[in-house]
């Protein structure tokens, strides 16, 4: 758990299609101050660009000058063995706010606690590993930035 001082200004970014109703919404929004965003995969093909821009604006606004965001760049829970490919959102976030530090975090065992499609959790011990902030070059392309980020998270898994 993050120390209280940091917790107050840390906001997770979560999928609107999952977290936007009933008790889940109450947990996400009230307890965790989550920023709920649309997932590209849940939007019709033609509307994606506009939706992505809107999402990016929301994130920039939520971050403001003092908040941190927790972004899950895989966009979903994986199979627990490999780190899935990263969505491009973090690249666009970086290109708008290159002053912000991107800290890689690896969550182990989360998929064992509650795999995709299950509703009853099992109390396996999980571990959160933080890495050093990414150091992207100023002229990083989308692919090279995502590759760097991906590599940083994988390095934490193997450590």
């Amino acid at each position, binding site marked *: 758990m993050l120390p209280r001082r940091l917790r107050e200004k840390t906001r997770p970014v979560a999928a609107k299609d999952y977290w936007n109703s009933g008790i889940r919404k109450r947990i996400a929004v009230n307890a965790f101050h989550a920023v709920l965003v649309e997932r590209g995969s849940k939007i019709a093909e033609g509307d994606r660009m506009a939706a992505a821009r809107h999402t990016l604006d929301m994130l920039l606004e939520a971050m403001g000058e003092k908040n941190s965001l927790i972004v899950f760049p895989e966009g979903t829970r994986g*199979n627990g063995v490999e780190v899935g490919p990263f969505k491009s959102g973090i690249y666009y976030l970086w290109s708008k706010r290159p002053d912000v530090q991107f800290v890689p975090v690896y969550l182990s065992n989360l998929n*064992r606690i509650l795999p995709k499609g299950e509703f*009853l959790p*099992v*109390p*396996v011990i999980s571990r959160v590993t933080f890495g050093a902030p990414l150091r992207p070059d100023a002229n990083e392309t989308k692919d090279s930035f995502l590759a760097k980020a991906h590599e940083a998270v994988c390095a934490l898994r193997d450590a």
Partner: protein
Amino acid sequence: MSFKLDHQMFLVLNVVIGGLVVASFIGFILSRRVQSEDKRVTIDNLNARIRAWWIMIGIFAISFMIGPAGSMLLFAFVSLLALREYVSLISTTRADHRTLFWSFFVFTPLQYWFWYEGWYGLAIILIPVYAFLFVPIRLALAGETTGFLDRAARIQWGLMVCVYCISYAPALLTLNIYGYQRQDAKLLLFLVIVVQLSDVFQYIWGKMLGKRKIAPAISPNKTWEGFIGGVATAVALGTALWWMTPFPPLVALGMSLALALMGFAGGLTMSAIKRDRGVKDFGSTIEGHGGILDRMDSICFSAPLFFHLTRWFFVTHLSWFR
């Protein structure tokens, strides 16, 4: 099944607390006098262990005061934590998820509930028979065949060690020994004291004189000197505690020996699992000791034997001694 806090129990708890006071004092002196860096690490670890002992004794005493239900709940909780450490350490797959859920939230509570109700017949077969059959059935229903036997065995093993074996410790409270009614809590205390003293003295003797390693591939800390010194000390102290048990002194000696030997076997076996998984400790729940399972490994193996020996000789075949 109920018990009272009689003067013997009171005395033993006081002696244990007194022993901890002495240990804390020695630890304090040592930490003041230590010079070299690697000795500092050993002393810090020793003091962390002593602090953890205070907390463990505290929790144990409180659950004793609540009564048998408190002890059952305490050990059920210990089982859950132990199983959690075990499952976290072994590799499980997505297809094991539901089976694991059953293990944690159905078999573990059921096991302790059966003991609490005094249903001996059910309690001793629930996991070795019914969970043994249920686990592969549930895994087969999940439809994943890769590593089937390995996965089933891993879960069965976890249930046996972390739930079934540990549950034998509070099961001592259900024994209802003739001439020893309502005093069973002292038997549980006897088990814990002898086994843990054996562990502690193996550690101390090993640190002081340890040279010849018993099984270097499994545990570099286990030496013949530590083993013999620890077992001998635990047996001597256990025999000296015969008055708190239903046993004559000579039987208390035999029981202590059985407890210390099985406790050692438990520590060695669980070390082999840790080695296989490439870790030193099962967890980090208890400062200085590693996880719950690192502290319970010797109880896991000794409690079942102690229970059945006591039950055979002092419940069902008591006439042999009268």
